């Protein structure tokens, strides 16, 4: 006798086949822009520029070369700091994952580093290194490195014990175990950690520029806010958000492309 299929109200089944998320999404984006424009026109104040005014300010900033220049300057500190953070974060993370005792010894510091607002450490960096590019790179590095390290460590630690036992019983040496089992096993967490690290690096980049030197995107944001030219601040802000969102979306795509076999828990 066939088992009757159980029907119950799942929210999934309610999602009809003809749903068009793209359409709703587009309408929602258009609505936000429209409301923004209307609020900007209605408020008639200095503080909220209209969408059109912001768009023209963006074109102006691009044409005058201020925004491209800021992007370049910010990009240099972002990429250098991030690369150092990835390199060091992965190395230390792998070491902490491999040596239990080491991780136990340092887990206090890791929990501290995870909650410590790096922004508060920035004045120390500035005082030691001065108001220059080196400071900004170190600040980007500090913002990004912890999250990368933690995710790599957890990635190594959560590699299935069965896999390790199996490799051992087939006579894998330590280097083999590391290269062939732990590294591939931890790779989803490594990639996820790098993605989160990129997000933090953006924050570090802005933080460094706001606190350290009068350059880059962070400075543009503050300067125009100070000059009460909100349309320029909005235009710069949208550039920063857009850039971060695009890079993060690309990383997410890379992550999905590379890692198809497992679901991971990201430490954040």
């Amino acid at each position, binding site marked *: 006798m066939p088992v009757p299929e159980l029907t119950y109200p799942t929210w999934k089944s309610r999602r009809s086949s003809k749903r068009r998320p793209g359409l709703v999404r587009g309408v929602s984006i258009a609505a936000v822009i429209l409301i923004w424009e209307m609020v900007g026109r209605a408020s008639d104040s200095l503080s909220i520029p209209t969408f059109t005014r912001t768009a023209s300010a963006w074109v102006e900033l691009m044409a005058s070369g201020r925004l491209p220049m800021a992007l370049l300057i910010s990009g240099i500190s972002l990429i250098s700091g991030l690369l150092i953070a990835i390199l060091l974060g992965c190395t230390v993370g792998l070491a902490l994952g491999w040596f239990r005792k080491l991780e*136990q010894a340092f887990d206090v510091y890791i929990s501290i580093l995870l909650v410590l607002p790096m922004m508060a450490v920035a004045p120390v960096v500035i005082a030691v290194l001065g108001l220059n590019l080196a400071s900004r790179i170190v600040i980007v590095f500090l913002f990004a490195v912890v999250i990368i390290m933690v995710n790599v460590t957890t990635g190594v630690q959560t590699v299935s014990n069965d896999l390790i036992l199996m490799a051992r019983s087939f006579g894998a040496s330590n280097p083999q175990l590391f290269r062939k089992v732990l590294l591939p096993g931890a790779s989803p967490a490594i990639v996820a950690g790098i993605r989160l690290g990129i997000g933090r690096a953006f924050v570090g980049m802005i933080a460094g520029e706001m606190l350290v030197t009068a350059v880059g995107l962070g400075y543009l944001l503050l300067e125009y806010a100070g000059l009460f030219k909100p349309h320029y601040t909005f235009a710069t802000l949208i550039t920063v958000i857009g850039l971060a969102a695009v890079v993060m979306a690309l990383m997410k795509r890379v992550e999905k492309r590379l890692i198809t076999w497992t679901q991971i828990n990201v430490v954040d």
Partner: protein
Amino acid sequence: MNGDLASPLVGAVRSRKRGFLTVFGPRLAALGGAVLLWEILGRLKISVIIPTVSGAVKAWFDLILSGKLGPHIVVSLGYFAAGFFLAVFVGILLGALMARYQLIEDALDFWINLGMSAPMLAFIPLLIILFGLGDATRVAVTFLFAFWVIVVNTFTGIRYLDPALVEMAVSFGASEGQLFWKIRLLGALPLIMAGIRMGVGRAIKGMVNGEMLITVVGLGAMVMHYGNTFNGEYLFAIIATITVVALVFTSLIRFGHRRLAPWDK
């Protein structure tokens, strides 16, 4: 009776004692090593901004006893609490609505993704333009830092709940309301609590970042003050205070997590 009660207790204490060195040995070694290293670094006088441990501890006691630190902590925590609780409330509500109604998810997921990846720090100048240098800006910064991760975790927890749980509840005749409150919300609780824990950390960061750029009151303002005057001992005392506050709050949420969702791990 007394003996009956005592024996397991004594056993527990003894076993904890036995494990003490293996559990805390490496940690204590690392802690002692770090303090020593820091003290040496401080005594080498590399920079005025890197103090000795003893100097920083003295500065901290000085700040506490002179009553400079207390009011700033209270002010900071006030903004923190307002922004954070608003983020928890709105975040859970919105996350649940997005999980429940497809239309809301489709309309908002673009914005939520944007908020998750955008550096919130960049919004501070904008918030200053919109709300001025007052309380609203501080609360808004804290809110913005904490909000997104709470929404995403609530949404994920409810939407991707184990279907077997729903099936079981329905076969026992649960109504739609019961299904939501007793199955979906409760089943999502571990993820929601994890989101709140991440939110607490972010809210503290938002609070400090906001205060550092607004620089009138609060712990962040003190960081800027002592940073700008190259007062390393006091700066480190403040940084340590912020860290302790952050650790206390994340531990409280962890404790709440264990109490509310004891089945999770």
